[in-house]
């Protein structure tokens, strides 16, 4: 999958950097450290800009090429920042046959962005995600940690409005 690389300038804080260094130190003796450290780095920064990948590479003493290879291979690693509210629409089979594709299209139309993009005001980002395993509630979408299930296309606008005015 082609990844969208962000052009937004990096703005990490010293606190974040200290946290990252801690995470790196905790995994130094671990032979397969790159993935767990990148996962923690993404927790800290929200995404993995090249500057962060560079710190991970130097900290773990592995080539940047290897770190970049890993961060672009796995779909969970984001190279561009997410919005304040990240909307994930499940495109697993159970959700798809119950019309989650239409829900994704509706969101795309309402927000004016394509999947994997973020609105210019940084409020919403849209992701098409793989099965989250809540197939009993299909079709499902999540906004940050909130789960909305048994959806119809008509409900989508109301849900978004709740966050717009929040």
């Amino acid at each position, binding site marked *: 999958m082609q990844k969208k690389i962000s052009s937004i300038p990096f703005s990490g804080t010293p606190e974040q950097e200290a946290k990252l260094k801690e995470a790196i130190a905790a995994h130094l003796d671990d032979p397969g450290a790159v993935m767990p450290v990148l996962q923690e780095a993404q927790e800290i920064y929200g995404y993995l800009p090249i500057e962060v990948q560079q710190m991970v590479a130097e900290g773990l003493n592995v080539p940047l090429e290897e770190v970049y*290879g890993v961060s672009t291979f*796995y779909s969970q690693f984001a190279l561009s920042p997410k919005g304040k509210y990240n909307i994930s629409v499940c495109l697993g089979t*159970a959700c798809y046959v119950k019309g989650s594709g239409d829900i994704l299209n509706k969101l795309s139309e309402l927000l004016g962005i394509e999947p994997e993009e973020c609105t210019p005001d940084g409020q919403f980002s849209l992701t098409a995600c793989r099965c*989250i*395993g809540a197939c009993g509630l299909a079709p499902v979408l999540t906004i940050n940690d909130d789960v909305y299930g048994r959806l119809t296309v008509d409900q989508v606008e109301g849900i978004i409005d709740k966050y717009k005015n929040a």
Partner: protein
Amino acid sequence: MYRSNVLVCGGTGCTSSNSLKIVEKLKEEIKAKGLEKEVNVITTGCFGLCALGPIMVVYPEGSFYSMVKVEDIPEIVEEHLLKGRIVTRLLYQETVEEDTIKSLNKTAFYAKQKRVALRNCGVIDPEKIDDYIAVDGYAALGKVLTEMTPEQVIQTILDSGLRGRGGAGFPTGLKWKFAAANDADQKYVCCNADEGDPGAFMDRSVLEGDPHAVLEAMAIAGYAIGASKGYIYVRAEYPIAVKRLQIAIKQAHEYGLLGDDIFSTGFNFDIQLRLGAGAFVCGEETSLMTSIEGKRGEPRPRPPFPAVKGLYQKPTILNNVETYANIAQIILKGADWFASMGTEKSKGTKVFALGGKINHTGLVEIPMGTTLREIVFEIGGGIPNGKKFKAAQTGGPSGGCIPEEHLDVPIDYDNLIAIGSMMGSGGLIVMDEDNCMVDVAKFFLEFTVDESCGKCTPCRIGTKRLLEMLEKITKGQGTMEMLDEMEELCYYIKANSLCGLGQTAPNPVLSTLRYFKDEYIAHIVDKKCPAGVCKELLQYTIDKDKCFGCGMCAKKCPAGAISVTDYTAPGKKKPAYEIDPSKCIKCGACIDTCKFKAISKG
């Protein structure tokens, strides 16, 4: 001792519909009524009947409350827990029979099930090791370490006939035997909990509902092959499962059931968690091991097989969560008990995740050899809204679509392959007449194109070419020659891809071509999508005899494709409208606007 136990489902399905708030409210109300010493609230794993979530069961009565809301809790506490009067109105209606209340096990959903791998899901509190020990937990590990030799353990698993539940169906005992035969200073036991097949969630439910069963089985496997280290590779998308595994590992350490010198036998075994990061190919064994090593999860050619050179180049076994969930029971109850269930070549039970167009979405565990018809129409409660069954899809992106004519085939590994699908990890998605089979094939190919790791050409380029042809067909640009080309390409990809992902990726195309060729032909020759899914092939038409001539649709049409005609239907006052198909962009705005249902698509 408590006089009542209230079990609330804390699986992902029910949590998503707020079951944790229900637990909170329950505890609050119980305290307010001063019942906290009499009534115990337990958060359990998945009950299986996710369609009715959130689920709550009160014992000793066994009252099954379904679709519980936070607002219902005060009434349930007041009436049922305080005064002993079951709130019949809120029960799962199938358990209510006139004046009596049926046992849950007698309902259509549960009656035909046989729970082995899921035996503790929805029964125990997965965050308490004592609950697991109370149901014979870790007894199998004790038995193995104190009474059996590694060879005897392997022989028992071989005799049971257990085959890998992750998809390929390789005999588990054989895998262990190969790894045991290789000498090395370090061996590994791995658990594949990277359940990437969209629509399958049985492994997640086992991890959420009964995590210790997996830890115990891995320790048993470690003893059998001579390994002291284990890794569980679990999807990061399953936060509840990850949390419960972490708790379980910690508790097992505290009880001396993991770590050094287990049961004072000198056997050491430890387990680490590794989180996946969303790559479907990591379900393939060599990819998964490469990923545990922290690298890009690309597969490599076999041989050498992992039993010879696996993780960090050491002998390794990898089994799936559901496979492990069977192990302790086989050790305790014997190989013959397990082999007495199922068909000649597929023993035991299998868990299926029912999803899609089916009334009882959820998890079911049935003996091998049960027919699809029983699963879909008896256990699953049939198709909602009176629609017609079209196909059942098993095996996810590696499997195929099974049409109605094969509904009576007894399900086992070999029969499913014979009808062009596969067991896979056990996702079972039901489709009805509104699903277009060409679109479904396209959906799975989009998935595999996205998830192909790119290492080998047949998979990387072959699946892309297949998808392009499918896209053309769904747009009405297909030719009949394309069908033959596709089939040829499918067999080429299957024969030449490096790993299981590519070798099975064409299955959705092949099986739909085999059973639903008429739908492909309708797309190609008639330029029509019979199910009304493929947008480019839809035609919107106005029934002029139903049209009142209000003109609302023409106002709404963004493309200016609707105009007034000079025909006025009998009994109507204004002339009817019509759609110019050459201008229509098929947005559907007109259908939504028409109050008289005069517009149809097809």
